[in-house]
Structures are given as structure tokens and as C-alpha cells.
């Protein structure tokens, strides 16, 4: 009898301690907003991973300077927990799950790129964690009917349609297009959208093929393109592919009326590495320092964002930096509107859209991708980026032909 009472008391005490521990842990978690961000900080995608991190860090610095995010009637500082997934997508998925289960983050920022974003979105959906995707533009990323994913990039056809329009109206002699895509989720999806946009306007697609990831040579593909005599060439891939392809196009004297490469030419790195070959290359991007949006977020405007970024990093921001900061301000605005960190409330707030950010006005389709702004078309002219479209921020005229 005495032993039984002793056991009962012991269990009751253990239960009480456990409850206190659980309660106190959950109280502690509310003292800051925890965001999980798996990034490729090493490996082939590390340049892009570092760019995103710069964008995140600028936002965190600015928001904590102002006391934090307003959650109801108090302000909570933000803390981003980073893990390096070494440019390996399966690892990104594992780390996303670790962030949710072990680190108990409130929200997630997706890993880099359409492929990894799609893979990790399964984790977000499983645990019901609202996740913001800074770098996923392919609609294929959003085709699983998930409710927790919200992306700042408009879909790929928002790049291809305006470009095809520009070519059709500004270069009417263009009748034949050749498309070369990297065999990767986003570049290939983009290439396929270019094919659709070109065909819609009666431009014949005389070549469309894909090159493997890690290709060190494109000479023979370019020889085939040359023999198909295109007026317009579209190349998709990441920056190292595009630098090499631009050089090899020059090596074979391939000089179409219009050359479009996405996304490399928006980076100064591309212009530096290709030199005079960069002239008149067209590209498109989701954001450019020339943008002139005013916003309700802590940056107040695109111009002010560019100013703050330059002051911190001594460099102009590119669209990858900007989208990193954009998911930060988007999350902040959504939490402030919801008045709480409750995931359901924040998710509903995000889905309602209508956010005025320095990155552009952000509203989302039912699938979760942004559908509320026009990405600018850029052309490299004498070593500088000129905005060709939209008219509101145009800074140069469309030039035809290559050197």
C-alpha cells in the first residue's frame, strides 16, 4: 500500500515536471519569430545561395533594428536558422524537416531553385508550415494542390510572353527561333514556354534541344543551331553555362538578330566575364534596381532598398538578393496583418495577397505563385543594363544585331 502511494506520488511529480517543461518551452518559443532557411552555401549553387542569404540578412538586420515584427500588441525579433544543404536537393528536404521538427521554426523559406523548392514543399505541406519561395517560377512547382507554398516569382511565361511580344513588334524580320535549354527543371520549363510563346506569334521553332548539367562544351550543339539559320536564339541555364555558350556562339560567328539568355546577363558577373560579347544580349528578370515601386514594408520603396543594400554590401542588389529580402518583408506583412504567429492565420493572410512591397505588388494565384506584377525586360548595352519594358521604368531602346 505504501509503495503504491509512493509510486503514485512519483508519477504525479514526473507528470507535473513534464507539463511545466512543455509549457515553459512553448512560452520561450514565442519570444522570437523563428524562420528556417535551408540554403546551398557550398557546392555548385553556392553563388546563388550566398546571394539569397544576403537578402535575408539585410531584412533581418532592418527588422530587428526597428524592434522586430509586430505580433498583436508586442514586437518580436526575428531569427533565421540556416542550414547548408551543399547544393544537394535530397539533403535540402531532410534539413527542411529538421528545421520543423528539431528547431521548431514557425515558418520556412524554401531552398534555392524550382527543383529543390518543389521537393521541400512536401515537408511544408506535411507539417502545415507556411513556406515562402523566393526563387521558384515554374508552374510545375505549384501543381500539387499544396496550400502552404507562396512564391514571389511570377510564372515563366511572364518572362517569355513580353519578350516574344517585343521581338515580334521590334524585330519583325525575325521568323525563325532556336532554343537551347539546360536539362534542369526551371531552365527547361522556361525553354518550353518560349517555344509556346514563339509559336503563338507565328515564329517557327527551327531548333529546340537540351544540354546536360555540367556540360563543358557546346560547340556541336551550336554548329547545329548555326546550320538551322535562326534569326532569334534563346538560351536558358545558369550563369556558368551562359558565359560559356555566349563565348562559343562567338567562336562560330553565330550572330542572330536577337539573342536572349536567361538569367545570367542580369548579373554584373556575366558582363565582366563576356566583355564585348555581352553587348545587345536581351534577358528578363523579376526585379531590377531600376524598379520604382513604393511599398508599405520597412524598406518603403525599391530605391530605398537599393540604397540600403549598397550601403551594407557595397554592391548593387540583383534580383536574387531582392527576392531574399522580399520573402522577409512578405512574411512580416502577413504576420502583422494576421496579428499572430498562428500558422493557420498567417497562411490565410498570405493567401489574401494584396501586399505592397519594394519588390512589387504581391498577390498569389490559388496555386501559390505570384501573379501581380510585370517582370522587366533588360538588354545589355555597352556594359550596362538598360530596361526595355515595362514603359514606366524604360531606360533604353531595343537594339538589334550582335557584334
Amino acid at each position, binding site marked *: 500500500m505504501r509503495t503504491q502511494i509512493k509510486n503514485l506520488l512519483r508519477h504525479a511529480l514526473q507528470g507535473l515536471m513534464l507539463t511545466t517543461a512543455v509549457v515553459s518551452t512553448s512560452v520561450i518559443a514565442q519570444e522570437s519569430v523563428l524562420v528556417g532557411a535551408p540554403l546551398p552555401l557550398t557546392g555548385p549553387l*553556392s553563388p546563388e545561395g*550566398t546571394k539569397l542569404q544576403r537578402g535575408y540578412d539585410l531584412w533581418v538586420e532592418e527588422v530587428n533594428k526597428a524592434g522586430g515584427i509586430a505580433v498583436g500588441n508586442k514586437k518580436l525579433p526575428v531569427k533565421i536558422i540556416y542550414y547548408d544543404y551543399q547544393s544537394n536537393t535530397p539533403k535540402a528536404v531532410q534539413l527542411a524537416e529538421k528545421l520543423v521538427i528539431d528547431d521548431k521554426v514557425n515558418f520556412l523559406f524554401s531552398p534555392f531553385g524550382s527543383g529543390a523548392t518543389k521537393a521541400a514543399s512536401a515537408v511544408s505541406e506535411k507539417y502545415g508550415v507556411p513556406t515562402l519561395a523566393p526563387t521558384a517560377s515554374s508552374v510545375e512547382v505549384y501543381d500539387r494542390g499544396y496550400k502552404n507554398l507562396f512564391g514571389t516569382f511570377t510564372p515563366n511565361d511572364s518572362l517569355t510572353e513580353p519578350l516574344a511580344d517585343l521581338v515580334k513588334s521590334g524585330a519583325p524580320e525575325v521568323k525563325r527561333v532556336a532554343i537551347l535549354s539546360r536539362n534542369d527543371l526551371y531552365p527547361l520549363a522556361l525553354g518550353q514556354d518560349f517555344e509556346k510563346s514563339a509559336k503563338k506569334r507565328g515564329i517557327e521553332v527551327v531548333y529546340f*534541344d537540351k544540354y*546536360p548539367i555540367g*556540360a563543358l562544351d557546346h*560547340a556541336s550543339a551550336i554548329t547545329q543551331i548555326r546550320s538551322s539559320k535562326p534569326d532569334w536564339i534563346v538560351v536558358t541555364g545558369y*550563369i556558368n553555362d551562359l558565359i560559356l555558350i555566349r*563565348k562559343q556562339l562567338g*567562336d*562560330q560567328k553565330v550572330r542572330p538578330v536577337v539573342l536572349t539568355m536567361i538569367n545570367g546577363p542580369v548579373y554584373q558577373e556575366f558582363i565582366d566575364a563576356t566583355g564585348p560579347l555581352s553587348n545587345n544580349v536581351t534577358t528578363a528578370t523579376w526585379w531590377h534596381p531600376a524598379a520604382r515601386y513604393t511599398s508599405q514594408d520597412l524598406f518603403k520603396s525599391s530605391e530605398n532598398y537599393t540604397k540600403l543594400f549598397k550601403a551594407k554590401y557595397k554592391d548593387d542588389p540583383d534580383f536574387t538578393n531582392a527576392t531574399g529580402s522580399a520573402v522577409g518583408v512578405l512574411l512580416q506583412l502577413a504576420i502583422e496583418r494576421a496579428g499572430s504567429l498562428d500558422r493557420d492565420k498567417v497562411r490565410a493572410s498570405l493567401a489574401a495577397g494584396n501586399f505592397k512591397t519594394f519588390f512589387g505588388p504581391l498577390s498569389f494565384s490559388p496555386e501559390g505563385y505570384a501573379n501581380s506584377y510585370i517582370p522587366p525586360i533588360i538588354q545589355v548595352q555597352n556594359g550596362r543594363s538598360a530596361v526595355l519594358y515595362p514603359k514606366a521604368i524604360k531606360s533604353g531602346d531595343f537594339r538589334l544585331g550582335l557584334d
Partner: protein
Amino acid sequence: MLSLQILINGILLGGLYSCIAVGFSLVWGVLNIINILHGSMIVLGAYAAFFAYSQLGIHPFAFIPIAGLSLFILGYGLQAKIINRVMGAPVLITLTLTFGLNLILDNMMMVAFKADYRKIILDPPLGLLELGSLLIPIDRLYAMVLALGLVGCLYAILRATQIGRAIVAVRMDRDAAALMGVKVKQIYAVTFATGAFMAGAAGCLMSVIFPISPLTSNAFLGKAFVVCVLGGLGSMPGVILGGILLGLLESFGTLWLGPDFSTTIAFVVLLTLLMFRPTGLLGKRGFE
């Protein structure tokens, strides 16, 4: 005409691959070390050439001996102080060691130079050689010439100099060579250093042809590996043959099946060759 241009593309690409592979083949063939550092050493040579050109105006071709010598010293030090400690151990031990050293070198370069891609843009540019409608980029032609030059020099050194004979002797029978008075550890260091010299020289040319970053080292290593297996170890002409064969396979693979399958075709041929002739096209037995 299309096929002829593709043929030329393939041969030039092969020259490039041979240039990348020659140092790797020497080290593997003579020392039985799979030098995972090789790609990074090429990248280091490329960075050295890049900064020499952009900061000091030294032409990358003129810089070849300097880059080569710097890497020679680095390679000598690495072999003499570190890798020599595991010579004679199973090949996986040396592979693990060079793998670890590669990680260190790669990440040091990433910290020092960041991962941004850089490329030398020569002013005036080297341009093209035009033979009718056939186009030959001169920088790739130089890569071919350099590869042939490096292999030729090595061939001559191994046959005509004292140190070359000593290297061959150590390769044939280490113990017998030691009994003949050859300082084996020193020969190891000289051989590894020579491989590093070649990597540095190749790197100077790569900085003109490719965008360079610490991230490209694995791509170079991968090609060097395939070239050596195709051409066969223990044979310097095998490097040239292996390189050209790989270049042709990838170029014609692109023509027949599209760019996406060009590397697949190369690997299918590689696997088939390994089944019927594991020593490669010109390889000699003893370094499998």
C-alpha cells in the same frame, strides 16, 4: 560541311581534354595515385593567370611557366611532406588523402576568391581561323598545341634525362630502383610536382576558354579521369588519343542523339572498352 565542322569541334575539344588530363595521367600512371587535387590545381593555375592578367597585364601564355613553376613547388611540398607518408598503401588510402586535400584547397579558394565565375577576355581577342566555312577558334587550337607540347616534353624527359630514367625505373620496380641508388621519395615528389606543373600550365589556358570558379574543379577532374581510362595508363600518347576519342564521341554524340546524350554515349563507350580492354587503348598492364 556540318559533319566536317563537328569533326573539327571534336578534335579541338579532344585537344582541350588532353591538356586537362596529361598531368593526371602522369601521376596515376607512375605513382599509382588517383590525384583528386588535379582539378583544383588547374583552377588554381587559372586564377593565378586571371589575376596576373587583370592586375599586372601579363598575358596568360607568357604566364604559363610561372604558373607551372608555382604549382610545381606546391606539388613538391604536398608530396614530400604529406602524400609520401602513405605511398605503398592501397590506392584507396591515397585517394582519400588527396580527396581531403582537395576539399581544403577548394574551400580555401572559395574563401579567397568567392564562387563568382571569372574569365580572361583577351584584348585583342585571339579570334578564329577560317577555312572556307569551317571555323577554328584559335584558343582551342593553342590548347591542342600545348597538350602536344607538354606530352612531347614529358616523353623526351622520360627517355633522355637522368631523372626521367629514374622515374621510369621507379615505375617499373620501386625496390630494384632503390637498390640502384635512386632516391625513391624524391622521385615521387618530382613526379607529383611535374603533374602539378602541367595542371598549372593547363589552367592558364583554361582561364581564356572557360568561366573559372572553384566549382569547376570537379568537371575538369571528371574529364581527366575518363580520358585516362580511355587512353590507357602508363602511356603519354594514350592521353592524346583518349582525349581526342572523348572529344569526338561527345561531338558526334551531339549530332546523332542531341546534346543531352553526348556524355551518355561517351560513358557507354567507356564501359564497353573497360569490358573488353580494361587497360585502355594504349595502356600497359600493371596500373589497373
